[in-house]
């Protein structure tokens, strides 16, 4: 089968070739190939370690959720929009909290968008037009291995034809694998992204005189050089990663970078975009945005949606012990949340829906295995730049899809809630 869509990272490559006999995918990177490889699965639905039917597991799960005062519904980045939509409606009906993986990933970027907007473009604009690409706190060589080839570094575009016509700059706190592919590497002191961005804005707007000799471990000369490259590019792109959104300054770093892009657009063209992680983490934000107005950290306890990351992001809900049950779909918070949050997850009833056993399985009271989207089921997903791709069904399975499981849950919840 051709033109298979990858369901690993936010690059969502759609040019894979799948050999059904050998169960192997061609053309994808190591991460994509691992996604399509055969792995250990959760064998059957389980309640407290005992195998049960799907219906029994769903009944049990729904009882927990309906009786909860404030259930947390978390995950969603590795499933399709159809399932996410049901998850959002379920959270609304249950009066719970909807939160998604971005809240420990790129969500600070959303806060920045609220402050300043998002002057961006699709990956195709970068591939075809960007003569300068800056990876800021992003390491696609390890997190999005084919990004450079398909969209940003060696991608062959219409106006920017190849690598020679494109300048690649990496700004990071360490010489990453991506930094080694760059024309220029700017190594900065951890925690100084904000200050450096402020300095660049000052230099570009003609206030270089106030900028001190060194900012965040970077000399003023180097900053001026960087500013000149940015000003002189006909079309440039800043692609930022978790180095910006997970470190000191978080949303403020992104906000400052957006302000820099706004400034550059007064004289030339620049765009900025986050290097989103999971294949459908964008969908996990887009779907709730059209269904209920916000993209993450959404509370429905009052019967209508409210947004507050300081209170309703999953880590805060858990740190504050502000939930009494959790439904985890297509995610592994036990592996990826700080220990304090994991500690509380261990204390409350957890329901998991996932194809694969993971650390969250170990703390879950109800485990419901699901089909793997992109291999065993189809559905729509959003690439990191919001371009929609339909992941495909290649193989048959007896596992239920997330969509079917959630639909059954929703039916039961609606019945119980009247």
């Amino acid at each position: 089968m051709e033109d298979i869509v990858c369901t690993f990272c936010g690059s969502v490559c759609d040019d894979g070739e799948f050999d059904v006999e050998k169960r192997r995918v061609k053309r994808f990177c190591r991460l994509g190939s691992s996604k399509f490889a055969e792995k250990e699965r959760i064998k059957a639905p389980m309640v407290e370690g005992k195998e049960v039917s799907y219906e029994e597991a769903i009944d049990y799960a729904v009882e927990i959720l309906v009786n909860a005062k404030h259930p947390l519904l978390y995950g969603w980045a590795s499933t399709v929009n159809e399932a996410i939509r049901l998850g959002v409606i379920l959270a609304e009906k249950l009066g719970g909290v909807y939160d998604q993986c971005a809240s420990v990933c790129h969500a600070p970027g959303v806060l920045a968008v609220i402050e300043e907007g998002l002057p961006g473009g699709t990956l195709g604009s970068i591939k075809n037009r960007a003569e300068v690409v800056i990876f800021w706190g992003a390491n696609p060589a390890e997190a999005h291995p084919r990004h450079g080839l398909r969209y940003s570094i060696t991608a062959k575009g219409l106006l920017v034809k190849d690598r020679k016509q494109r300048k690649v700059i990496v700004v990071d706190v360490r010489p990453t694998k991506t930094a080694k592919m760059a024309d220029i590497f700017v190594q900065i002191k951890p925690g100084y992204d904000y200050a450096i961005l402020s300095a660049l804005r000052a230099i570009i707007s003609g206030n270089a005189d106030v900028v001190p000799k060194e900012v965040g471990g970077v000399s003023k000369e180097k900053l001026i050089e960087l500013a000149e490259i940015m000003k002189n590019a006909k079309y440039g792109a800043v692609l930022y990663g978790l180095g910006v959104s997970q470190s000191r300054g978080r949303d403020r770093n992104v906000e400052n970078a957006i302000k820099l892009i706004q400034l550059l657009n007064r004289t030339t063209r620049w765009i900025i975009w986050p290097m989103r992680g999971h294949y459908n983490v964008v969908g996990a934000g887009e779907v709730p945005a059209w269904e209920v107005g916000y993209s993450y950290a959404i509370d429905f306890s009052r019967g209508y949606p409210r947004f507050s990351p300081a209170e309703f992001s999953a880590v805060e809900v858990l740190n504050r012990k502000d939930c009494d049950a959790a439904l985890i779909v297509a995610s592994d918070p036990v592996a990826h949340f700080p220990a304090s949050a994991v500690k509380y997850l261990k204390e409350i009833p957890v329901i998991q829906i996932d194809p694969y056993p993971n650390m969250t399985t170990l703390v879950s009271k109800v485990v419901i295995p699901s089909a793997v989207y992109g291999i065993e089921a189809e559905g729509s997903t959003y690439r990191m730049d919001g371009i929609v791709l339909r992941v495909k069904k290649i193989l048959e399975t007896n596992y239920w899809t997330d969509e079917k499981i959630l639909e059954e849950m929703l039916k039961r919840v609606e019945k119980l809630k009247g």
Partner: protein
Amino acid sequence: MLWIKNGVVVDPKNRINAEKMDLFVKDGKIVEESKVKKGDCKVIDASGKLVVAGGIDMHAHIAGGKINTGRVMRPEEMRVVRNIAGKFRATVGRVLLTAPAIGYEYAKMGYTMSFEAATPPITSPHTHEELDAIPIIDKGALPVFGNWHLVFKCIEEKNLEKLKSLIAWTIERSKGFGVKIVNPGGVEAWMYGGNVKGLDEQVPGFAVTPREIITWLMRANEELNLPHSIHLHCNNLGIPGNYQTTIESIKLANGLKNEKRQILHVTHVQFNSYAGNSWRDVASGAAEIAKIVNSMDNVTIDMGQAIFGHATAMTGDAPFQFTLHKLIGARWSNKDTEVETGAGIVPIGYLPSNPVHTLQWAIGLELGLLIESDKVVLTTDYPNGGPFTEYPYVMAMLMSKKMREGELKRVHQYVQKATTLPSIETEKTLYEVIHMTRSLPARVMGLDKKGHLGIGADADIAIYDLNPLTTDFSNEFDRVYKAFKVSEFTIKDGDVVAKKGELVKEVFGKTFWVDASKKVDVEAVIPDVKSYFDFYTVQFSNYGVDERWLKKSKRIEVI
């Protein structure tokens, strides 16, 4: 089955003006009396009430990347709670509404169809996912063509057949409804930080001009004979002096004719009707625009009325959005979309104390009043000019000089010298306003089962607590406004969905799209399309929307 008894019907398409009559509905259609068993009918007593077809919003931004980014960047818009979760969905939104809120609010107002006015073909799957999430109303979406490299290429080659094939292929792939053109050439120029300033300025990197883009797409559209004409957002939007560009663009329709509908629809013309040289001496060019539109028999427009209060500018006109961001210093989102097009989003508000905003408000009304009712559709270009929920305000204003006089007193007096609004005596009749909100948009979009109440029409019906036979529309404007805000009954495909502003049933409407792929040899353009896919970031086979993905597809085949 439904029997709507004793209503006072206004149905301009069928030349019915305030006649007392009964309507019958069966299987979602309006049928003859003989087709129903009256005993089995649910009866709605519409005595002394106005019965009209469901309203049609032919140009709004209701789904897709733009409005959704708007929602994410404006949580303050989302704090207005409209419905608490219960039997129906929780809905929120001040002007920017969630998808369920869009469906519910249209329905409560007696509107039953709305078109998403601009979707880049590559993002059409997103647009359709959002359209599918909007309950009750019927929907459609217009893919954009005016800045697409492939379109430029066909025009450069002067190959009309290829262009026709490209349009047919794109509309089928994107499940689109027609050909939208946004600032032709200007958005491509924006990729280099520029814009195009006139119809004859060459688009950077291409041997084409906006004039050629419009003309060629118009010709291709006509040869394909699509239900809708080209749908043009003119160059120079939002720039003082732009009314001349608009007039020149309108003239491009000269010489072409279509039996059923216009050749050219120019959209949200309010934003393209500015005289003057700068924001300091900006004035209305609406009278000139009205003159040219009235003089032509193949051009229609919609108003793009500005409503005082909050709004969000969102359009494919990316360079304009950046200009707006610089002008007012507000947040700014931008989306350069592959080699297809671009878009931008900026929060705005219209204040009656601001001379420019007041001018915009007045120009919309001038257009609505000065242009013949058979050529101007009521829109706010939601959410650019403001909320669609204020259509009743515009309807009432068009029908009452007295209401306008009252409003003119509370706004910035700049409008007195900069517009003709204070001197306009015209009061549109109810018949005209119903036409402007129902039968006309249906005709403009080429929908023969919509916008009227004749036998065979879709049973999309609105009943208002307003007796046209006894209402003084000039003086009772407040009552008129309130009556149109909230329908007594809204009926969608024969189902009563809302009653006195309360939702009673949630249904899902259809998505209308046009299939002209049999009309031309689509294969003629495929090699070119495929060669362009080297510059796309998705595979050719993964581009577009399959019909089975749509919740409720309504394919309109063009033969």
